[in-house]
């Protein structure tokens, strides 16, 4: 876990999605750090997280990850935070906020999707066969990574700059954990959980997102009472990389209001 930014300022917690680690936020952290105390962390199995904390049962569904977020908030003990969750972490935030609303001041859901699978009138964008294909992609790309790269996964917590020099180290996760996280992510259905959110919520979607198709952002906004929707003119699923200024501005505008 990394804490940076303005000391004593309101706390913004940034949670990365499936695929990479907290480095995903590097382009928006400087802008956010001017206004907030910024808390960054890696989900278990990603980045420099402690692999020994992994437990296949706990992390078979998103609830285990939500429990981790709650634990981090409790441990930080800085009062309610603004939780910014990217991709699957947006639903992790929804679950955490539904469980312990007093720990959360606001939620920012960045390119969220409560359900990736097609289901009748709901267009999540993917079929179960697509998800199997993804798992196959993970298998083929981890082939050369597993054994020799283990030391890199463990990382050098004391000297993060060492990690950054290693090619592809950002997105390197333990293959077994990545498969499990992929299943927990893409087979989750959190549509019913959205209505339980009682925390002021901002939904941020991209105009052209291959993972959370147009319409899903609107669905999320309509399902969470009193939430707002911002559509960024950005391509892809990671606006914090493709449109960092606009992403940071949306977070600052929402999290900074009324303070």
């Amino acid at each position, binding site marked *: 876990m990394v804490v940076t930014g303005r000391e004593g300022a309101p706390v913004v917690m940034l949670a990365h999605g499936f695929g990479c680690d907290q480095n995903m936020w590097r382009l928006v952290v400087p802008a956010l750090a001017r206004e907030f105390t910024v808390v960054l962390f890696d989900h278990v199995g990603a980045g420099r997280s402690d692999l020994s904390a992994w437990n296949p049962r706990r992390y078979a569904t998103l609830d285990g990850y939500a429990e981790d977020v709650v634990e981090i908030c409790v441990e930080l003990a800085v009062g309610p935070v603004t939780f910014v969750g990217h991709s699957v972490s947006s639903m992790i935030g929804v679950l955490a906020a539904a469980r312990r609303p007093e720990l959360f001041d606001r939620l920012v859901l960045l390119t969220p999707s409560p359900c990736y699978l097609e289901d009748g009138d709901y267009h999540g964008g993917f079929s179960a066969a*697509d998800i199997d294909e993804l798992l196959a992609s993970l298998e083929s790309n981890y*082939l050369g990574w597993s054994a020799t790269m283990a030391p890199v996964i463990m990382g050098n917590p004391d000297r993060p700059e060492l990690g950054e020099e290693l090619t*592809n180290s950002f997105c390197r996760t333990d293959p077994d954990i990545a498969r499990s996280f992929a299943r927990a992510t893409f087979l989750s259905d959190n549509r019913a959980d959205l209505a339980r959110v009682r925390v002021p919520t901002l939904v941020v979607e991209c105009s052209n997102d291959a993972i959370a198709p147009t319409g899903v952002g609107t669905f999320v906004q309509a399902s969470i009472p009193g939430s707002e929707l911002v559509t960024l003119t950005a391509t892809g699923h990671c606006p914090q990389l493709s449109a960092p200024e606009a992403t940071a501005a949306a977070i600052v505008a929402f999290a900074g209001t009324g303070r």
Partner: protein
Amino acid sequence: MGESGGDAVCADSDDQFPFAALLEDSLEDLYENAPCGYLSTLLDGQIAKINATLLGWLGYRPEDLVGRRRFADLLTVGGRIYHETHFAPLLRMQGEVSGIALELKAADGTRLPVLVTSTVRSGSDGQPLLIRTTIFDARDRRAYETELLRARQESERERERLQRLTTALQRTLLPPVLPPVPGLEVAAHYHIASPDEVGGDFYDLFPLAAGAWGLFLGDVRGKGAAAAAVTSLVRYTLRAAAVYDPDPAAVLANLNTVLCTEYRDYEPRFCTVIFGLLVPDADAGGFTLALASGGHPPALLLRADGTVTCLPTPGGQLIGVLPDARISTTRGRLAPGDTLLLYTDGLTEARTAGAGHRRYGDDALFDLAAGLAPTTAAAAVDALIGLLNSFGDGLDDDTAVLAISADS
């Protein structure tokens, strides 16, 4: 190339013309018909330029793709998710990504396994302008990788099977639970060094006639199936021999004869072992104790008064090597509140975590026991489990401990 390369340079320029003519190259031809797919995209993935090789593989015309489709549109859906969650973020963060395995979807729906490498091309001001991507046909390589993956998964399944088998075998060599003994508390622990191999340590506690109890603990040389077979033979021989004649020295002498005879024509199979006979002491309370040892580390007696005694059994020889192995014996008492501690040398030969990685050693164990006494069997074994865990990787051999205390 050194200074003396003048002749070579002349020769090169002489050759230049015929080579160029032979190659019939143009930059355009080098690009369009390169032996790999080549495409340029805008930062949002929009295809700006694509070479003839890749168009040929995919079965598209340039106008189908240029300005109309994104690179991710050429991928399978699963590959697109991988692209969005891994490939694209990596490319943004480090400016290049190489050797990523993906599948392209051709116009006719067929799939082409490829290896993709992308670099971000920046302008003179350092601002990223576009992405260049090379694509290599990876059909053969993917088939090979699939085979590797299958073999790896198979070997993982085999290893799990072996571990289950090993665990089951190991369990048959140890008593599932030690029997409750009137007037005694017993506890034991077995540390398995490798889940892949059956270890050679063993122990047991069993009733004999007239309220007496036999006990033993030992270590068969070697590991694996061959050692397990010897362990099994040793265990049943000791129990049978003790019924025949419970005198500890006689029990070990009989075991020695059996091992020497059994393996007479093969590589000798031997063990160190300590055998004990506990007989209730109706007059003084507690038990009388007779021990015999064949080359095994001495037992420790942690007394009720807080002192520790070594029960020396010097000079005993390995069981199963010589026809007349010397067996060393000793006698003592397990008075109320006393604890008898037996162990195999995995414990004392473990390397400590501290500087120098010294062997733990007999003296350190004696000191630890002195700190524990007076104690009970369960507390003593708990303390030793804690000690074993503290060794970490320094504990590379199987280790058995057995503790027996007389009720106070």
